[in-house]
C-alpha cells in the first residue's frame, strides 16, 4: 500500500496548535538564555515545564489524529512563507511524525526531570536546561517539518544543541574538542543533505514533501539513486553510521543526560527518520540506494557491537551499543515498507531502554564521583538497588530477552531482513550475539563481583528525582515492544505515512533465526559471565590481544580519519597559507618591491649637482637638434 496523500490541514483542533510543541521549548530556551542569572533559581523548573507542555500538546495532537480516518491522517499545517518561491515553514502531522514527537517529548521530559538531580551541583544548570529545551524544540521541528528546508533547520538545530551540550563542560579540552568534532563530522553529512536538497529542487522545483514524494518516480533512476545516496550521507552523519561514526564515542564527554537524550534516544535516530520519511520516494524496495542503506546498517551494527566489547568506559560502551542498535534500524529502514514499522518500533523501544541504560549509568557515575571506568566499579547492586534493577531491565531489553521490548523489535527486524536478504539477516543475528556479550560484560563488571573502587568513593543511591525517571523508563522497556509489535499495531498505525507491505508480517516466536538469535545471545552472555564474572577483573586495563586493541581503538576509525583527512588537511592548510603569503601576496609585494627598488636605483641619477642636470638638458638639446636635422634631411 502506498502512503496516503498529504492533505492541507483545514484548521481546528490540536493539530492547528501543533506549532506550540516547538514554540514552548524554544521560548523556554530563549527565556533562560536571555534572562541570564535572574532565572537561575527557577530555570530548571521552567525547562521541565516547557518540555512537559510540549508533551501535552503532542499527546493532544496524537489523540486528534487517531480520531481521524486513516486516509486523513497526513495533514500539513502551513505556518508562514519562509523563502518565497522556495520553501515555507510548515508542519506535517502524520503517524510517523507524531510517534517521534511522543517519544521525544516523553523521554525528553523524563530526562529533564532526571537532570534536575543530576546537574544540581553544577553552577550552570540553568544554561544546561536552556540547551536541553533548545534541543527539544529543534528536534521537534526536524520531525514535524513538512519540507526539507524546515527539516534542515531542525537538523542543524539539533546539531547545534548537541555541540553545545557535548561541550557543556567546555573548560575540559577533551569536551571542547569532542563538541567540535561532532559538529564538523555532522557537517560532512549535512553536505550530503544539502546537495540532495539542491538536486531535489533542480528536479522538482520544490522541496515540500507533499509535492516531491508523489512525483519522485518521474525522475530518472539515476537521479533517484543519487538523491537517495546523498540523503543517506546526511543520515550517516547524524546517526553515526559508518563512515561518519567517529564523533559519537567522543560525544560521551557531555553530561550523561545529554548522552541519554541526544546521543541515544532521539537525535542520533534522526538519520533513520530521514530514511524512513523519504523512503517511499527515494529508497523504494529493491533500489540501489536501499541496498546501500542496508549495507551501511549491517556494517555499523557489527562495528558498533565490536567496539562495545572492548570499552572499559561505561558510557563509551553504551555509545558503541547505540551505534550498533541504530545500525539495526538502518538495516530495517533500507529494506522498504516491510522494515519501516520495525525500524521505528525498534527506534522507539531503543529510545526507552537506551535512555534507561544511560541514565542508569549516569546514576552509577553520580554515585561514584563521576568515575566512568567499569574496572573501578564492581559489586554495586547492593548499594544502588533501584539503579541496578532498572539497569538490569534495560539490559534484558537490549539483548532481546524474551518478551521484553528488544526481543520483539529486534527479532522483527531480523525476521524481515531474513526475508529480504539472508546474508544480511545472519550478520544481524551475529550482531545480536555480540550484543549479548558486551551488555552482559557491562552489567557484570558494574554490579557484580567484588568492589574495585578505592576508598574515596562512597556509593549511594541517587535521589528520587533521578530514580523515578529510571523506573518509568524501565517499565516502558518491559512492555512497549510487545504492545507495538503484537497484532502489528505500529505497522498499521504508520501505514498512512510510510506505506505498508503487501502482506502483513506475522510474529513467529519459534522461527529458526529467532531461536538462533536467542542461542547466540545466551552464548555471548555466557562467555561474558565466564570471563568477567568468574575470574578477577584487573583494575588496570590489560594490554589485550590485537583484536581487543583493534576494538578498543574504535576499529582505527579515528586513526583512519587522521591519516586520510586530518594530516593531509593540515598540510594543505599550511600550504595554502604559505601560498597566500608568499605566492599571491608575494607577487603583489614583489611587484611593489620591484618598482620601489628600481626607482631607488633610478633616483641616484639625481645627484644634486646642478651641472649634471644641466648636462642632461644640454644633451637633450643636442639630441633634439640631431632629430631635427635627421627629420629635416628625410
Amino acid at each position: 500500500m502506498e502512503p496516503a496523500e498529504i492533505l492541507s490541514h483545514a484548521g481546528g483542533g490540536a493539530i492547528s496548535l501543533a506549532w506550540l510543541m516547538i514554540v514552548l521549548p524554544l521560548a523556554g530556551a530563549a527565556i533562560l538564555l536571555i534572562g541570564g542569572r535572574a532565572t537561575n533559581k527557577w530555570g530548571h523548573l521552567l525547562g521541565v515545564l516547557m518540555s512537559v507542555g510540549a508533551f501535552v500538546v503532542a499527546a493532544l495532537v496524537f489523540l486528534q489524529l487517531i480520531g481521524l480516518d486513516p486516509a486523513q491522517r497526513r495533514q500539513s499545517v502551513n505556518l508562514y512563507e519562509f523563502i518565497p518561491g522556495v520553501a515555507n515553514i510548515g508542519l506535517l502531522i502524520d503517524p510517523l511524525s507524531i510517534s517521534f514527537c511522543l517519544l521525544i517529548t516523553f523521554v525528553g521530559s523524563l530526562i529533564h526531570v532526571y537532570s534536575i538531580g543530576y546537574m544540581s551541583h553544577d553552577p550552570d544548570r540553568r544554561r544546561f536546561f536552556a540547551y536541553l529545551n533548545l534541543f527539544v524544540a529543534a528536534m521537534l521541528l526536524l520531525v514535524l517539518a513538512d519540507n526539507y528546508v524546515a527539516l534542515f533547520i531542525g537538523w542543524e538545530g539539533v546539531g547545534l544543541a548537541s555541540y553545545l551540550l557535548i561541550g557543556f563542560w567546555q573548560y575540559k579540552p577533551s569536551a571542547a574538542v569532542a563538541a567540535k568534532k561532532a559538529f564538523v563530522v555532522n557537517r560532512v553529512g549535512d553536505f550530503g543533505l544539502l546537495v540532495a536538497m539542491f538536486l531535489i529542487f533542480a528536479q522538482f522545483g520544490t522541496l515540500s514533501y507533499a509535492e516531491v514524494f508523489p512525483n519522485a518516480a518521474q525522475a530518472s533512476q539515476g537521479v533517484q539513486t543519487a538523491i537517495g545516496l546523498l540523503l543517506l550521507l546526511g543520515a550517516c552523519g547524524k546517526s553515526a553510521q559508518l563512515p561518519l561514526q567517529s564523533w559519537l564515542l567522543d560525544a560521551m564527554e557531555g553530561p550523561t543526560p545529554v548522552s541519554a537524550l541526544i546521543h541515544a534516544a532521539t537525535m542520533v535516530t534522526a538519520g533513520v527518520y530521514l530514511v524512513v520519511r523519504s523512503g517511499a520516494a527515494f529508497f523504494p524496495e529493491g533500489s540501489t540506494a536501499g541496498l546501500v542503506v542496508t549495507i551501511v546498517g549491517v556494517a555499523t551494527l557489527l562495528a558498533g557491537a565490536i567496539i562495545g566489547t572492548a570499552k572499559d568506559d561505561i558510557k563509551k560502551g553504551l555509545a558503541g551499543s547505540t551505534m550498533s542498535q541504530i545500525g539495526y534500524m538502518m538495516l530495517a529502514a533500507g529494506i522498504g515498507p516491510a522494515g519501516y514499522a520495525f525500524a521505528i518500533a525498534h527506534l522507539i523501544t531503543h529510545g526507552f531502554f537506551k535512555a534507561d541504560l544511560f541514565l542508569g549509568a549516569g546514576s552509577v557515575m553520580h554515585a561514584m564521583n563521576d568515575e566512568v571506568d567499569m574496572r573501578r566499579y564492581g559489586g554495586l547492586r547492593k548499594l544502588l538497588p533501584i539503579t541496578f534493577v532498572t539497569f538490569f531491565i534495560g539490559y534484558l531489553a537490549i539483548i532481546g530477552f524474551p518478551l521484553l521490548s528488544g526481543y520483539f523489535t529486534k527479532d522483527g527486524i531480523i525476521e524481515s531482513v531474513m526475508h529480504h536478504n539472508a546474508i544480511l539477516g545472519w550478520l544481524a543475528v551475529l550482531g545480536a550475539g555480540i550484543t549479548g556479550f558486551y551488555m552482559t560484560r557491562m552489567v557484570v563488571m558494574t554490579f557484580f563481583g567484588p568492589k574495585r573502587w578505592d576508598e574515596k568513593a562512597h556509593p549511594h543511591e541517587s535521589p528520587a528525582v533521578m530514580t523515578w525517571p529510571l523506573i518509568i523508563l524501565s517499565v516502558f522497556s518491559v512492555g512497549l515492544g510487545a504492545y507495538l509489535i503484537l497484532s502489528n499495531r505500529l505497522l498499521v498505525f504508520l501505514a498512512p505515512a510510510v506505506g505498508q507491505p503487501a502482506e502483513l508480517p506475522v510474529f513467529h516466536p519459534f522461527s529458526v533465526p529467532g531461536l538462533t538469535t536467542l542461542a547466540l545471545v545466551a552464548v555471548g552472555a555466557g562467555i561474558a559471565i565466564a570471563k568477567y564474572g568468574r575470574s578477577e577483573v584487573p583494575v588496570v586495563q590489560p594490554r589485550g590481544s590485537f583484536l581487543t586493541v583493534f576494538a578498543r581503538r574504535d576499529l582505527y576509525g579515528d586513526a583512519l580519519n587522521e591519516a586520510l583527512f586530518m594530516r593531509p588537511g593540515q598540510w594543505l592548510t599550511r600550504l595554502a597559507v604559505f601560498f597566500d603569503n608568499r605566492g599571491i601576496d608575494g607577487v603583489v609585494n614583489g611587484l611593489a618591491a620591484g618598482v620601489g627598488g628600481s626607482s631607488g636605483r633610478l633616483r641616484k641619477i639625481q645627484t644634486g649637482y646642478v651641472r649634471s642636470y644641466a648636462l642632461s638638458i644640454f644633451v637633450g638639446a643636442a639630441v633634439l637638434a640631431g632629430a631635427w636635422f635627421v627629420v629635416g634631411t628625410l
Partner: protein
Amino acid sequence: MTTHYLVLSALLFAIGGIGVLVRRNAIVVFMCVELMLNACNLAFVTFARQNGNVDGQVIAFFVMIVAAAEVVIGLAIIVTIFRTRRSASVDDASLLKY
C-alpha cells in the same frame, strides 16, 4: 651672410653651454649663461634683418631686460649662498638630491 651670423650664434651658444657645464664658480657659470643669451640675441637680430621687420629686435630687447632682472636676482642668490657657506661653487650646493 645670414648663415654666417647664425653659425656664429650657434658657436657662441655651444661655447656658453660648455662653460655652464664645466665651470664650478657660480659667477662664471652665470657669465656663461649670459653668453648664451647674447648668442640668442644675435640670432634674433639676424633674423630681424633677414625677414625685414623689427620684431626680432623687440624680442632681443625683452631678452636683455629679462636677463638684467635675472642677473640681479641670480647674483643676490649667489651672494646669499656665499654668505652662509663661504663658497661660490655650484657643486657645494647639492643637498637637494635623491
